[in-house]
């Protein structure tokens, strides 16, 4: 009985390995600087949570990333994305980031959604000198080392940070809703919520803090990176292309994933090469890039300076919708 089991197991293992033994994915040396009108293949590594408890975020981001890669590749410049799953576990991040860099020889990394996992990846990006662009991690510590206060040389993000978002909400409440008292609802278990709450508190002049239950959600607004209803050029095309490919409207995460890849391609074009250091420098010099999540400029702390949207929760018709209210610029 035991032997049969052992044989079976070995057989399965062998079959898997043999079946999976095509030559390892075409790895490339960092490409030589291509000529004018950049051509060649930009290789990107996306590390995301495709399974586990934040799987939905990783999946959405990956969809945006893949759409962007497809769109860019229809031109001279090709973009290949290798996505590895970290199963929503910080433990997996160093292993898969290393693998993306070593096995797939990526020119740059895209990831992650969760700030804690981006922070886990950041030291590797720096020590192996591979530019990393986080699509939606909002905690300041991702791009700025909290111990030294210095900006991490190879880590960037295309979204705004928690303090900024908190300030945006505060401004909205003060200026648009014209209210002066606020109850702060914070999920202490969720680092994102805590960071956001702090940002709000820091910018709101007279906060009154109360513990409130969820049944008081009547006229609710929230801030986001993106709304499909925005009227900026490029947004509608993006929404339509996304719908065509995936059959649903894109959310903020997908839009940010999309922008992350597009900004990297743009940086490659500006740098005129795929060299990692050149990419890094080009990223640092990103000014006014027209992304679907806003006009993006990268500041000295490698964070994106752009506007935020305010969206309202509308449950009046029985189904929940999120009509756009306004956009707040930095």
């Amino acid at each position, binding site marked *: *009985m*035991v032997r049969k*089991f052992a044989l079976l197991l070995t057989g399965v*293992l062998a079959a*898997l*390995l043999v079946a*999976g*033994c*095509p030559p*390892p994915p075409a*790895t490339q*040396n*960092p490409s030589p600087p291509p000529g004018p009108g950049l051509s060649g293949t930009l290789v990107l590594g996306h590390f995301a949570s*495709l*399974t*586990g408890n934040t799987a939905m975020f990783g999946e959405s981001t990956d969809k945006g990333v893949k759409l962007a890669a497809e769109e860019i590749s229809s031109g001279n410049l090709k973009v290949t994305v*290798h996505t*590895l*799953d970290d*199963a929503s*576990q*910080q*433990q997996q*991040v*160093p*292993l*898969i980031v*290393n*693998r993306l*860099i*070593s*096995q797939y*020889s990526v020119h740059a990394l895209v990831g992650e959604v969760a*700030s*804690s996992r981006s*922070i*886990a990846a*950041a*030291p590797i990006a720096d*020590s*192996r*000198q591979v530019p990393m662009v986080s699509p939606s991690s909002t*905690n300041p*510590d991702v791009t700025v*080392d*909290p*111990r*030294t206060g210095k900006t991490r040389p190879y880590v960037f993000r295309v979204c705004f940070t928690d303090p900024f978002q908190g300030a945006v909400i505060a401004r909205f409440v003060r200026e648009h809703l014209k209210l002066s008292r606020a109850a702060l609802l914070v999920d*202490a*278990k*969720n*680092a994102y919520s*805590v*960071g956001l709450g702090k940002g709000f508190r820091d910018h709101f002049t007279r906060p009154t803090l109360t513990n409130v239950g969820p049944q008081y959600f009547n006229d609710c607004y929230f801030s986001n990176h993106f709304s499909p209803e925005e009227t900026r050029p490029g947004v509608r095309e993006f929404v339509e292309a996304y719908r065509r490919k995936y059959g649903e409207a894109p959310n903020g995460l997908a839009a940010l994933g999309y922008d992350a890849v597009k900004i990297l391609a743009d940086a490659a074009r500006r740098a005129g090469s795929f060299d*990692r250091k050149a990419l890094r420098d080009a990223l640092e010099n990103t000014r006014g890039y027209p992304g679907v999540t806003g006009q993006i400029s990268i500041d000295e702390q490698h964070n994106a300076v752009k506007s935020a949207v305010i969206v309202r929760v509308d449950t009046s018709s029985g189904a929940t919708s999120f009509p756009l209210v306004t956009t707040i610029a930095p």
Partner: protein
Amino acid sequence: MRLVRRLIGGLILLAVLFAINGWGTAMQQAVNSRPDLQSIAFYRQFSIWWPVVLETGRWITLAVSLNLINGLAGQFSLGHAAFAAIGGYAAGAITVFLGPRLCGDATLAAPGAYPPGWNLLFAASLIAGGMVASAVGFLVGLPSLRLRGDYLAIVTLGMGEVVRVVIEHIEPVGGSLGFNGIPLITNFFWVYLVAIATILAVRNIAQSTHGRALLAIREDEVAAEAMGVPLTRYKVLAFVIGSFFAGMAGGLYAHFQGSIQPQAAGFIESIQIVVIVVLGGSGSITGSVLAAIALTLFPEILRSVRPELEQYRMVLYALLLIVLMLVRPQGIFGGRELSLRGLLARVKR
């Protein structure tokens, strides 16, 4: 005479670890600073697999230390990752808060290649981490006296989650965001020194009279007590020692990743250690070591050839557990050990 032999053996071991470490770290630094080396297959494979080697050592430590509690003493603990997390946070706190003051600036140090002063602090922090984890192990061991198998399992599971929630509330170490900026001092030497120490410690306990007492407790508590085995002392001993080594593993992890999060204390992490122990065979140290190697290497090999299968990893673990329990519940080694003498005897036959 035996003492001298042991000492020499120990020194040789240290030298070997040191040598391998030196080589490995130098290679890693080379690959980091010279991207052109990537095109040479050997360097490329090295940079993929070297971190896996380090990971394996950590899992060996975790599995063997859990085996002491689950396998040898028969106390089913589902919260082992919590001890590791506690150790990680404690060790990290020491290097982060005391390091710059005691050992000077280290921002230019390469991962795994910190100055000797830092390494000493690191060793101390690992031990301290282990001790803090032990203290918690002691507290868990106390109520565990009264609980049987499945209840104890659920309680330890709950304890793991409570630890996670508590850590989320401790602001000075980052709260729910996690503790960042931990210096990357972990390297091959430390990982395998701790792993070997764990194996030796657990093996020595297992082969001593204390080990017999633990086995007696595992087989039949009432009978053991009737024979005069002090249940209290031994159960708590198992927890304390097991959690000590887990704490050290946690410290190694924190300094490998440069950060540690409260989720590291959670159930999912603990379960992975349990799977290794169950696969290898509860009570078999060799089993734990080999299973740890297998279950760390196999997913990585799979990732090399078929990365899209990654999403099936947990599902496969689940099926593995179910099938194992139906077909071979004693695991691969089933409580037996592989020993040099035994192998030689087999060969002679």
